[in-house]
């Protein structure tokens, strides 16, 4: 049918084709009959209708045969689906975190990324974790979809990719303003290649490489952590205040119900990221931004601040 690259594809597509075949059969047969009747029995050709008595046996026939047909469809759907619910014991374990409006993936060795990197031909078990509202984890090419429900801790799904390549990963549960931009990719790699990626410790290093451009890294962090879904870099007003021309200015905030003014400086940014609901930027709603405590280190925030400085007026 369409691009398929996991072990589930066969079961799903078989059920699909079976049901579609039945459907087309009934659709074409019945539509054909209707058209034939219109042609054959219209009142010019057939001025006098013949009255026909009901027949119980006929009614029973077209009740019982469809029952068997739908039972068949049910069965195929069941068979194609059951493996999805039976993840193997062994496999690569990844936690997928979803928040408005970005995914991030966390591996067992601590490595995190905003794309899902997986090895080909091996099971990947994904723990689905939503931080704020419902999201859904959907990879069309793998025929995998499962909602990410806040508060539901043991929710998981799994798959085994069969072809290398890059595939789309969508959020399919409506989650607010940027729902349609909440997408990512799955990169399926050869096993060795994946191993190298997985053990590439430079990416998890707590210390930024010497001499790297801090501001540039900060910019990348904003991208990969999904900040720019809410904070624009060009002055547009999204869910949160823009970063453009913000650094160093005075901001009106509400703290504990009191209006006050603060300077947009290191302290303010750090607090805004760790305790977003402490100061509420006037005109914005509390509860939208979640704390990034534990997700962004002080070092990361330093980089972000370096970048914000470049946007100062």
């Amino acid at each position, binding site marked *: 049918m369409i691009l398929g690259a996991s072990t589930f594809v066969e079961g799903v597509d078989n059920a699909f084709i079976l049901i579609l075949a039945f459907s087309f059969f009934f659709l074409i047969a019945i539509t054909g009959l209707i058209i034939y009747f219109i042609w054959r029995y219209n009142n010019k050709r057939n001025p006098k209708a013949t009255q026909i008595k009901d027949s119980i046996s006929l009614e029973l026939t077209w009740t019982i045969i469809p029952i068997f047909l739908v039972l068949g469809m049910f069965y195929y*759907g069941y068979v194609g689906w059951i493996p999805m619910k039976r993840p193997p014991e062994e496999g690569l374990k990844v936690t997928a975190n979803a928040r408005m409006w970005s995914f991030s993936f966390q591996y067992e060795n601590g490595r995190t990324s905003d794309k899902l990197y997986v090895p080909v031909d091996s099971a990947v078990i994904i723990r689905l974790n939503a931080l704020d509202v419902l999201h859904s984890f959907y990879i*069309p090419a793998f025929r995998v979809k499962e909602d990410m429900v806040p508060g539901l801790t043991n929710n998981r799904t799994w798959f085994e990719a069969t072809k290398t390549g890059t595939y789309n990963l969508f959020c399919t549960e409506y989650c607010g303003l940027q729902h349609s931009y909440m997408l990512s990719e799955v990169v399926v790699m050869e096993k060795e290649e994946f191993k190298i990626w997985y053990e590439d410790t430079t990416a998890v290093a707590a210390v930024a490489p010497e001499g790297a451009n801090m501001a540039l890294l900060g910019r990348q962090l904003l991208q990969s952590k999904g900040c720019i879904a809410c904070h624009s870099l060009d002055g547009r007003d999204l869910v949160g205040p823009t970063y453009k021309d913000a650094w160093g200015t005075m901001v009106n905030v509400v703290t504990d119900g009191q209006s006050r003014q603060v300077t947009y400086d290191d302290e303010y940014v750090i607090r805004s990221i760790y305790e977003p609901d402490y100061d509420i930027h006037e005109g914005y709603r509390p509860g939208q931004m979640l704390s990034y405590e534990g997700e962004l280190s002080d070092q990361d925030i330093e980089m972000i601040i370096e970048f914000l400085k470049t946007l100062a007026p």
Partner: protein
Amino acid sequence: MSETNTTNQHVSFLKYQGKYKGLLGWILSTDHKRVGLLYLYTMLVFFSTAAILGLLMKLELIAPGMTIMGPQTYNAMFTVHGIIMIFIIVVPGLPAVFGNFFLPLMIGAKDVAFPRLNLLSWWVYVIGILTVLSSQFIGGWPDTGWTFYAPYSFRTPVNILPALFGAFILGFSSILTGINFIVTMHRMRCPGMTWFKMPLFPWTLYATAWIQVLATPVIGITLLLTVMERVMGVGIFNPAMGGDPILYQHLFWIYSHPAVYIMILPGMGVISEILPVFSRKRIYGYKAIVLSSLAIAFVGYFVWGHHMFTSGMSGRALYAFSFLTFLVAIPSAIKVFNWVSTMYKGSLNLQTPFYWAVSFIFVFMIGGLTGLVLGSLATNVHVHDTHFVVAHFHFIVFGGTGFSFMAALHYWFPKMFGRMYDRTWANTGWVIFFSGFLTLYLPMFYLGILGMPRRYYDYLPEFHGGNIISSLGAIAMIAGILIVFVNLIRSSRHGEKVTEKNPWGGRTLEWQTDTPPTLENWETEPTVTEQPYEYK
């Protein structure tokens, strides 16, 4: 009944003068026929509004990126489109308009059982609509989708209280109509009309009314709890306080799945009326059709989980729901088979209502059969929450309920207004509408199979092709609907006059009274001796 009086005889219900004149004479009238028309006019207004929102969405989707609006506007649009279409148009739809107008006529009664309650339910309906619309002025259009899923519905910065509360009020209107109809059918059938001599449209209204009575309170309490959650923070659906968002979905669909049968059953009733009349032949399988309506209403209560196959429910619940979903398809299949058999060896009178009726069967089959794809576990996982679902329900809600609505309008039009529409224009409108419809929604199935999620303001370039075709279809369809509506509206005032009682040669009671009917419907109370649809 001493109330009958000579002065009102042979004065059509459209013309008679009561205590109030002009507009007041309508909005304060408890005459079931006037109430029906009030609903019709209200729906026309809001249907057009929501259809325009639909068109704007299609224009936005004609190309990736921003075309004519931003994401917040788009999200608000599908929400308002969905709320209006579901809660204001198709749920009350056929029962409120044609049920009110024709149920008493078809069972030989003078009015519904509680005429004042009936008028009240229209008023409640209008208040509900106004409440929903007031959200524009109190905190912006809602942006949660018509499903109001927790916990987004308590987190969205937009104030969705008016929308929730409005939908809650609309539920009352629906319940009142349901109660009224059930009592009417139990108590007011004319002499000789036993249950199995009742025509099929009233039968489907009966099944529908039961769903209205037994399912609507569920959405009522669910919406109310959501309101309380937002206002007071009781925590019942809020995961941060221990609540379970999946339970919200259970409750929502415990109502909303039976609600889809509220939408379609009366439509099926209309088709069962039209086919025998235009085939000059008794309906095939009268009892089977009756029983299948009741079966749909009953089994329909227990399949709600098929909207939640990927929600994180337990596996066992999933296959139980999938199984039941397949069972509920059987009664629909029985109906289709009986309808087609009714045409066999008939003498088909090819008129506009008949065209709408057969095209109903066609689009309903596509909608229903793709429902089977959705009901099967493996395939649902792939197409859930994609445009495949959007296509399924437009085919079946718009195709099913919408087409049967149009069929009903063209069928009963002469009886309601005492005038006939221009048949050539009516048929032209139908052709354009029908082809526009297919062009609009068929590509969506394909997009869904490719994996384009629904409620997406923007999409990846690979989905572009299907969207272009679909958007063009929307424009064609609007042209078709304009022709149809302009023709009907013009004809209701200037169309050729109809005075004969029975222009189509129907056998049911509404065709035995004056055209248009008088205030009390009958000069002498009718009696019934044979089955409906007994053509000789």
